[in-house]
């Protein structure tokens, strides 16, 4: 379903990236990286007001011909980026939201592991399994 799922740290370095098996993984990396521009833009435009309860889901970051890039930012500014094939018209906004919700939960579960140091690359297998599930489109 999704083509690429990425978790990006507050400081914009990748914690976790998983793509569908493809020859040019780097293309997705570039896409995700570029999407950070928009994510940053959206965060900074909202974040001015401290009391503003920001919506975590950022919505469609930017479309390209082939892919749509969606963003989600947790309260600790950890970013989730999901790239979906734009030909997949069946995906509605709501489904993307649930996808992010699931991802967020998985991330929180992973974070609860006392042996995980916040900021380290994510190596949790449980988390990976959930992401793989999203990529395979269940």
């Amino acid at each position, binding site marked *: 379903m999704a083509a690429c799922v990425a978790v990006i*740290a*507050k*400081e*914009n*370095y*990748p914690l976790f*990236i998983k793509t569908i098996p493809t020859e040019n993984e*780097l293309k997705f*990396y*570039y896409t995700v*990286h*570029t999407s*950070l*521009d*928009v994510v940053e*833009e959206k965060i900074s435009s909202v974040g001015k007001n401290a009391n503003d309860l920001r919506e975590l889901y950022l919505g469609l970051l*930017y*479309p*390209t*011909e082939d892919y749509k890039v969606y963003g989600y930012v947790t309260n600790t500014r950890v970013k989730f980026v999901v790239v979906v094939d*734009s*030909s997949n*018209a069946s995906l509605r906004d709501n489904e993307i939201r649930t996808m992010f919700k699931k991802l967020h939960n998985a991330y929180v579960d992973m974070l609860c592991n006392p042996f995980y*140091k*916040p*900021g*380290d*690359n994510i190596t949790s297998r449980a988390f990976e399994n959930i992401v793989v599930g999203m990529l395979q489109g269940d």
Partner: protein
Amino acid sequence: MGRSWEAAMRAMDYLYNTVVEVKALEIEAPKGAVSCWVILSCLEVLDACNLHNPGQLDERFALYTANLWDYARKKLRDLGQLCSLMPGLEPTSEQLSLVVDLVSGMGLSSQDGLSPTNKSPVDKLRESLSSPNSFKKHYLEMCEQAMGTYKYIGRYRSARLIGMELADFHMKVSKPEKAENFLLDSIRMYQQEGWQSLADGTMVKLAQCQKQLSDPSKYLKTSCHIACSQQVSDAERIHYFQEMLSSLDQVQDDTIEMRASQAIFVEKLYLDGFSVNLNDDMTLTVTLISNFPEAMSFDSIEISISKCSEAEATEYEERQHTPAQSSVAPSQKVGSHRRQPSGTHIALDKMSNFQPVTKTLPNSIEFHTFTERTKGRLVSCGTVCDRAHELLSRSDSASSTGTPVPLFKGDYSQCFSQKSVTLQPGRNDLSFSTKVTETGAFRLGQMCLAVRCLELLKPLAGEGVYFKVTSIPPEVTLKPRHSGAFIMGIEQEAELMFSSGSSSLRRESSVAVTTFPFFSVAPAPDPPPLPPAPHHDPAADPSGDEDDGSREQVVSPVRGRGMTLAPLSSGSQQAIPVTVFMNMRRDAVQDLTSTVSVSVDGWQETFHTDVKFVHPFHSIHKVYTAGKQKYFQLVVQGSVPEAAFTLTEPRLESPACRDVDLVLINPPNQTLRVNQHQSVSLLWSLEANVALLPSLDLGFSCCYSSDLDVASHVSVPEQPEQPGQPSPRTYHYSCSIHDFQTQYLLSYAVSSIEEDKACTVGETAVLDIKVQQLADLDLTEGVKLAYTVKANGTIWAIGGKSSGFFTLKDGKHSIVLDVVPMQAGQLFYPLVTLYKCMDQVEDASMSEGESSESDDTDLSPLQTKQAKPMREREGSISQLPYRLLEFTSDQIFNESRSRQIHVQPCTANSEIDVTLVP
């Protein structure tokens, strides 16, 4: 309404959706037609927006136009690809006809009259499709526009992405030098943001670009980087590893320096000690992790050592000594490579040729606690971070902090070094050792791994490994070879021992020895080939670490007169055999300390060493009396444990007086051997030719020889027939004796009152004292003498005057006293002492101040015998106007001293008092 940007925003969505829809609905269209339509739409919308946006670029406006520009650019690129208009592609006839179709599909140019600067989108597209050159021009223009707009709205990432595509394009048009900059920009950004995979992926492109550039040194660096990257596939890594090796061969002229950070990690640095002596070996153990995909052999690995302040080193030492820290420290170091806390994993050091613009936080912030007390009361406490200023300083406004710090090869004049090392992929343990030739505090500066012209540099200052080098100054000592101390008066074999301490002597240098008069240090003569050799051999090698070779070197220069010191490595010793002679002066009685100055050319230093000489003999003289006969005894004893002397030709002379003959009583050919435990006693009788003996100044001399004496060694075996040839060493002892002539004979006896009866306890006995003047002295008559009788009151009770005056008549006098023995047994006689009486008047000038002792008549008899010849005494007769003057022990001959009498116990008593008298 000033909302022209809304058109752009909506156009964007519309265009994307349409394209997707067209695809989804599988609408047939000629290849490229959709692209052409998108480009045209974009450009038209942009034109329209521009038209209605009279003001400057508005941020909002730019926000959406940027996307449009980018989209148009992408489509143009696709078109270029499709029609082979991209450089490097040769359009086929099919593609040419496609171009014609597309151009015709766009319709006629609407307004021909427009100025060339303001062409309609259709014209633009048509023009760009017309030829590769104009395509290139238009494509670059469009890229420029898109990038510019992106940058304007702060979407640097998007801008860089276009930059990379631009780089691709430039490479295709064979302008790699332009491409390089775009790629470097991108890599820098990716590395700053920690997208290693992207950075390394771009690095591969950079490598290709640099290969085109035919810049082998840059290519080498990039290949090296890729080869060590964890993000790149193994095949690629190995490929670039080979590339690196082959380009290493190409670069020959100059050395290339680069950071080793990506390739080599230092996991552990361990010095075997914090403090080391100058010129001592120091060992450094390093654990390196090589990221090269294959084993890499380096020509050399060096670790430079740089000076640092003493304080830094001390601080480091203290940290090392805190037990908790020392055990943690190594593991922390390991951890620091793996741990990637927020934003800090982009360790400065890990970026090969790049520096981050933004400041990274250190992964640990050091702070310490402080407490302030006054008069024992806590005033304040807190935590302090010493680097707070540095850490908190704003980096965004201070652009200077962002300037890259180039890494240069440091000073490797002092370094740990190892040649031809092969590092396997992964962990490698290396051990270095070096000698430091300078004192001070040092730290490890940099590591340099060299392969031919490539030098991988790694700064190690951050590891904070410090050490101190202390020096031991060179030392020169003079030491006798066969005895514990130098002995005056004989020439001894000795060693001038040079310990180099921490400094070394590189070349032969001459040694000059200066001494005070009577003291000589000379190079030892060659060891004779004759029997005395055993003497030299066992002692030849006093310091165990001196090898035979250097010993040869030492001996040979000595053949010539001056002394030469062979080259000396640090921490070693060298001995030069010398002979030391201290002339024994006539008046020398005691030990003597002299100084020898040894100057060594090579060190340009003069060493002063105190040398103590022990007087070999210890002599005591004494005069003995038997009646009027006098004897002079001299006891000579050795004072040094190791030295044995043989004395010959003892002579005693009184050079000033010819009236006294000195006759040696010892047998003439007696062997006189002297050492510390054996003394020689020489006895002379004094035969006077005159009645009145004068004071005598006596001089004793004798020849002596010792086994330790080098001179005797050398000469004796060679010239046995001329024993007198070497000037014999003589020992002189002088003394003077005076007031030693016997003037009076004193004898006394205790006897029972009744004749032929033994004394009994408690019964009165008679002490008969006789004083006789020696006849041949013409002493003046009427000299007043005094006597005292002293006895322990529990042994003798003395009746009558225990002291009194008398004058000799005809040279004789006798006194009778009653004494009562108080104990039975063998009793010593009460001690009788004679004094000379002096008139108080004539004696007034002499010192008094003895009044405090005025009533000490009951002192034990021994006290009066104390050898204080001229001491004045006042007895119970002190009220008399006389002073008493003691005679010297030689002037009175006491015949009865030490005589005893047997006293029988009292018979009548029922109680028996038994006393054992020892």
